[in-house]
């Protein structure tokens, strides 16, 4: 199936965001903000009773989708994501996207894509764009 303008990217879904993985991310990023690991702090700030996922993790779900579709991390060449909303522990998420343009540059065939991350309740989390290298093998596999 050819990749063309309007082709949807197979979505990447998260059944339930893990509070435990937020703790790992806090440690990896030296991120001391307790909203990512301490429910008491989230409550004290009036932000609910579930910890809040790190923005880079939310970005990663979109990039996971692109890398799985394109075949490798190295094929994801650009992404620009705007942070719109929060993700809380146990939220279900869906990253999705659509090809908006195809072009050739530097010997590569590139697909420009519109991408997004949404919570299952419909709230927007990330909106943006990305560019990935596409090739004939992807079309044969699609």
């Amino acid at each position, binding site marked *: 199936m050819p990749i063309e303008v309007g082709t949807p990217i197979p979505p990447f879904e998260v059944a339930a965001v893990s509070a435990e993985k937020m703790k790992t991310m806090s440690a990896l990023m*030296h991120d001391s903000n307790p909203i990512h690991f301490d429910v008491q702090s989230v409550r004290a700030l009036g932000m609910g009773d579930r910890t809040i996922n790190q923005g880079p993790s939310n970005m990663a779900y979109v990039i*996971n989708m692109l*890398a799985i579709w394109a075949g*490798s991390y190295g094929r994801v060449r650009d*992404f620009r994501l705007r942070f719109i909303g929060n993700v809380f522990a146990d939220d279900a998420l869906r990253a999705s996207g659509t090809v908006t343009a195809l072009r050739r540059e530097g010997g590569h065939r590139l697909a420009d894509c519109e991408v997004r991350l949404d919570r299952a309740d419909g709230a927007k989390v990330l909106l943006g764009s990305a560019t990935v290298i596409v090739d004939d093998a992807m079309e044969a596999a699609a």
Partner: protein
Amino acid sequence: MSFSLEQLQASVGRAFPGGEYVIEPWRAWLAQDAMLAPTQGDFAQGVEAHPVFVYFAAIGAMGIGWDELFAWFGASAADGPMFGECAVHVEHPLAVGARYRVDGAIVSAERKQGRSGCFDLVGYAFTLTDGAGRIAATCRNSIVFPRRDV
């Protein structure tokens, strides 16, 4: 005391101390597990790293912490600064085990009026240079500082 428009505008061009960042295999493993990312190979030296490592490297080796960055703009975490946007360009995919030089600076600063009041939108950007001296990737981010006292 409020952070003046003049102070805000004067911040453009201010350089981060910068530093170096190594994508250690154990860090790649843990990050990909935490981000539910697909694994590629066995995290050995040279395997492509997840593109989010461009952001991790930039922030991890900018040479100051978040509190100090907020203080550059007369703010603290208690003021509720928020991520605005993250834009990454990858020229040469990052590799597990590789070391990158990180350089960066404040590249834009604007005072704006939104529905919820005044805020400052600050852009900051980084380049990652690999061991061969090539620019491997760039990362441009923005942060929003609410200005309730302006």
